[in-house]
């Protein structure tokens, strides 16, 4: 049994999570997933993720419920690591399964796009000269807004 929502300082095992979601629901023809990992950048020695305990889990739970409802998902999970991590380590795993592929693929896009701007996480880059907070990207805001608009249109 896999926890659907998890925020943890421990390393994430994307493959194990994906294994837990495949072949488990006989009505599911499609499972999509996204793995975010620490990318090498000039000077980066480690990435640190701060979050707001409790509020973060609630935000992720709400995003998951929105996705399940909108795309009639059978399964959906969001696991996010916090604390300090090295290049190549997994930051986040999002996965969704559904009868058909479009639902699973869109739900995963939605979850990772919305997570970036709607769940209280903050990234800090550690270099050998010190550390700095990562600035929000306009493209992340746009991607998140796209889904907000989509949902607003459907509810209208």
């Amino acid at each position, binding site marked *: 049994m896999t926890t659907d929502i998890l925020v943890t300082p421990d390393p994430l095992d994307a493959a194990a999570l994906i294994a837990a979601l495949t072949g488990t629901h006989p009505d599911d023809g499609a499972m999509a997933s996204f793995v975010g990992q620490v990318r090498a950048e000039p000077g980066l020695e480690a990435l640190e*993720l*701060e979050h707001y305990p409790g509020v973060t889990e609630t935000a992720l739970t709400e995003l998951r419920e929105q996705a399940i409802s909108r795309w009639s998902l059978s399964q959906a999970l969001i696991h996010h690591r916090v604390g300090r991590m090295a290049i190549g380590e997994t930051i986040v795993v999002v996965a969704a399964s559904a009868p058909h592929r479009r639902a699973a693929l869109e739900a995963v896009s939605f979850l990772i796009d919305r997570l*970036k701007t709607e*769940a209280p*996480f*903050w990234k800090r880059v550690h270099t050998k000269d010190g550390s700095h907070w990562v*600035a929000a990207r306009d493209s992340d805001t746009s991607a998140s807004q796209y889904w907000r608009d989509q949902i607003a249109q459907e509810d209208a």
Partner: protein
Amino acid sequence: MQVHIRYLAALRDRLGAGETTLDLPGEITDSEALIAHLTSADVAAAALAAPEIRLIRNDRIVTRPSPLDDGDRLAFCPPFTGG
């Protein structure tokens, strides 16, 4: 009324104290009046007025301006950058 205020992530670095409890004058009833009040004591608090600054009130992410009540636990947050 009394509120508990936290500054998170980059705002904590910028505004110093991670956590503070304040007694507010009676005319302050929403988040934007609070920000103006904080700015009068510390000009750096003007950064809180930027529209991208998010507010968490009693463990809920709320839209600004948000009403305030006695005993509120508030957290001002820079834009989220997870994932």
